[in-house]
């Protein structure tokens, strides 16, 4: 492994401009993590047009910061208000809030911040060693392998979500269908353009992401607008005691490993790893009865796990070009907008971007650790800003951003339409995640499928016969069998956690 590129990545990460955007990213991330409503995927989507003007490394450093910063922020409201800002911090609320009620909110938040820091940092370190090997292996992939890989990605993201398998599959199919709007990627024939030039170039990814995640979530939240304002308990100093630390340290270690491994799997990610980590901690604990009543391990484990997973979920995106979750799909789009194709070639073609972004995460995690403790009070006060004020401001930024992509008002209308689609999907129980992911992978999947078909002379069995793609097909089949089992286990675990 060539460490000189890793080291020069540090030089990139420490450029003043990149440090600034890292700081902006993690602060915004933490803020939206605290605020219920907009998630990291929506926030990143809304900010995409603004990153057009930035240099690629700075843009991705900022957007990545929003993603992992949100994991820190979500914890604060989980512990203080039992109101998780993010799905990945739901389980933290169980013991975190119990601690807060005992007057130990400060130490709980302190441990959570330290656990998050250790989990995130350990994960970056592991990424540094594993990513090059994975990218190296993927360099030999041809169209057949990419076809199967993209299918695995779409399938796992669809099935590991919380909703119905059929609805996830339908959402993914719709995403693939919308991706075919525009010119045929190989022949240039216009498809589904309804005779208008506006659709000839296809639908811009930014419009899809901003419409479905941004406008869709804003519209959806309009219907739930009258939530009572919660009272914030006092939390004292965010410094853990010796006992807290002794009880937490092994949980942090286990959580980091769990998070790293599950984060690499497409669809796994932060939420699942925090649930698994909680279950593990409860099982290994000497007195499992303390859990749910304020066991610090129940905060430390999941918090290190969700941050480790958030970091390691960059691996499939940066090495294979396959986004592991909805936020990564938006980041995939962000890289493409900058003229950078995420995939095995990224590390060798743009080592400055790759290592600059990866190493900026050390800085980001350090900033988050430093910021989270003194700024908790400030972030909690932000909760007092009413959604009725935040929503219209977000909407205007989104609309102006959509216009600025092509200086075209048609794009705004398209985005509103997609926003309504996103709202309707939520109401009817479809998740927008698989849709956006399938949209992003759609043209890659179609082009590699058709290239393989030409290569194989129309013989579908070639996918199984080639060693690498055959192995990937086996993985795909295995996941079709294993994932439903995993879902049942997880459903039971969640039930048990809820009952206790």
């Amino acid at each position, binding site marked *: 492994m060539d460490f000189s590129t890793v080291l020069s990545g540090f030089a990139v990460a420490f450029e003043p401009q990149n440090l600034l955007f890292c700081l902006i990213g993690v602060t915004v991330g933490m803020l939206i993590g605290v605020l219920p409503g907009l998630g990291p995927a929506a926030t990143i989507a809304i900010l995409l047009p603004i990153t057009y*003007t930035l240099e690629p490394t700075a843009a991705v450093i900022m957007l990545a910061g929003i993603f992992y910063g949100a994991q820190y922020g979500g914890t604060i409201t989980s512990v203080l208000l039992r109101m998780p800002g993010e799905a990945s911090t739901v389980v933290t609320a169980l013991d975190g809030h119990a601690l807060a009620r005992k007057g130990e909110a400060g130490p709980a938040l302190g441990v959570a911040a330290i656990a998050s820091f250790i989990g995130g940092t350990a994960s970056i370190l592991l990424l540094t060693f594993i990513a090059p090997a994975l990218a190296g292996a993927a360099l030999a992939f041809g169209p057949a392998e990419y076809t199967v890989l993209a299918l695995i990605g779409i399938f796992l993201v669809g099935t590991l979500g919380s*909703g*119905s*398998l*059929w*609805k996830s599959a*339908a959402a993914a*199919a*719709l995403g*693939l*269908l919308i991706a*075919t709007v525009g010119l*045929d990627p190989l*022949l240039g*024939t216009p*498809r*589904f353009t309804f005779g208008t030039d506006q659709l000839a170039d296809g639908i811009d990814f930014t419009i899809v992401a901003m419409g479905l995640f941004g*406008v869709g979530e*804003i*519209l*959806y939240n*309009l*219907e*739930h*607008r*009258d939530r*009572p304002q919660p009272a914030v308990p006092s939390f004292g100093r965010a410094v853990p005691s010796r006992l807290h630390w002794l009880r937490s340290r092994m949980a942090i270690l286990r959580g980091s490993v769990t998070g790293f491994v599950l984060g690499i799997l497409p669809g796994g990610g932060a939420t699942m790893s925090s649930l698994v980590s909680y279950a593990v901690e409860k099982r290994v604990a000497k007195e499992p009865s303390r859990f749910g009543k304020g066991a610090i391990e129940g905060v430390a484990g999941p918090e290190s796990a969700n941050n480790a997973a958030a970091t390691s979920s960059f691996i499939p995106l940066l090495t294979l070009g396959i986004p592991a979750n909805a936020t990564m799909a938006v980041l995939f789009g962000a890289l493409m907008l900058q003229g950078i194709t995420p995939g095995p070639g990224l590390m060798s073609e743009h080592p400055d971007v790759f290592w600059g972004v990866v190493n900026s995460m050390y800085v980001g995690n350090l900033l988050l650790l430093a910021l989270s403790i003194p700024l908790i009070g400030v972030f909690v006060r932000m909760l007092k800003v*009413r959604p*009725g*004020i935040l*929503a*219209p*401001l977000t*909407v*205007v*930024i989104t*609309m*102006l951003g959509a*216009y*600025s992509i092509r*200086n075209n*008002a048609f794009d*705004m*209308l398209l985005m*509103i339409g997609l*926003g*309504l689609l996103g*709202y309707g999907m*939520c*109401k*009817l*129980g*479809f998740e927008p995640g698989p849709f956006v992911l399938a949209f992003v992978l759609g043209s890659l999947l*179609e082009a590699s*499928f*058709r290239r393989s*078909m*030409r290569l194989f*002379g*129309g013989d579908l069995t070639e996918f199984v016969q080639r060693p690498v793609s055959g192995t990937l097909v086996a993985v795909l089949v295995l996941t079709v069998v294993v994932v439903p089992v995993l879902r049942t286990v997880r459903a039971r675990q969640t039930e048990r956690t809820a009952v206790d």
Partner: protein
Amino acid sequence: MSDAEAPQEEGADEPRAGGRAQAVVAGALPIALGAFAAWLAFGLKLGSLTDPGPGLWPLVVAALLVACGVAIVVVALSAKVFEAAPANRTESFTRGTGAVLAAAAALAVYASLFEVVGFELPTLLLLFAWLRFLGRESWLTSAAVAVSATAVAYALFILGLGVPLPHIIAF
């Protein structure tokens, strides 16, 4: 600012789980969409597996969409315990749905006015209407936030980022 504490009665209007009819609609829509797309795909050249034409892939995807829709309808109609099947989970439409449609309509008007009269007035009006009527802020808060946010948007997009938004105020 008194508006902030007042409207709590809306809590009764939180969306509930949707019924069987809505679950069937959730499957019928993908079927209709998939069928329409398949019909359009037939109009393009399908080609063969050896040499796929532009219509083949969209047709495969449209067929997949129809198949998923059929499965959702079957689950909705046949599930013994309706609530137990995750595919049946929907959320009922409430009075708030009207607000959502109004908001989308306001945005569409905004988008169409934008290139005609510049971005300042539509932005100001959109913000004000949203704050006052959808957010139920006071007249004063709505006006103050709308004016300052429009000014900030002007500074950020036009002066800061150099985005060529159509505008009537020039410096």
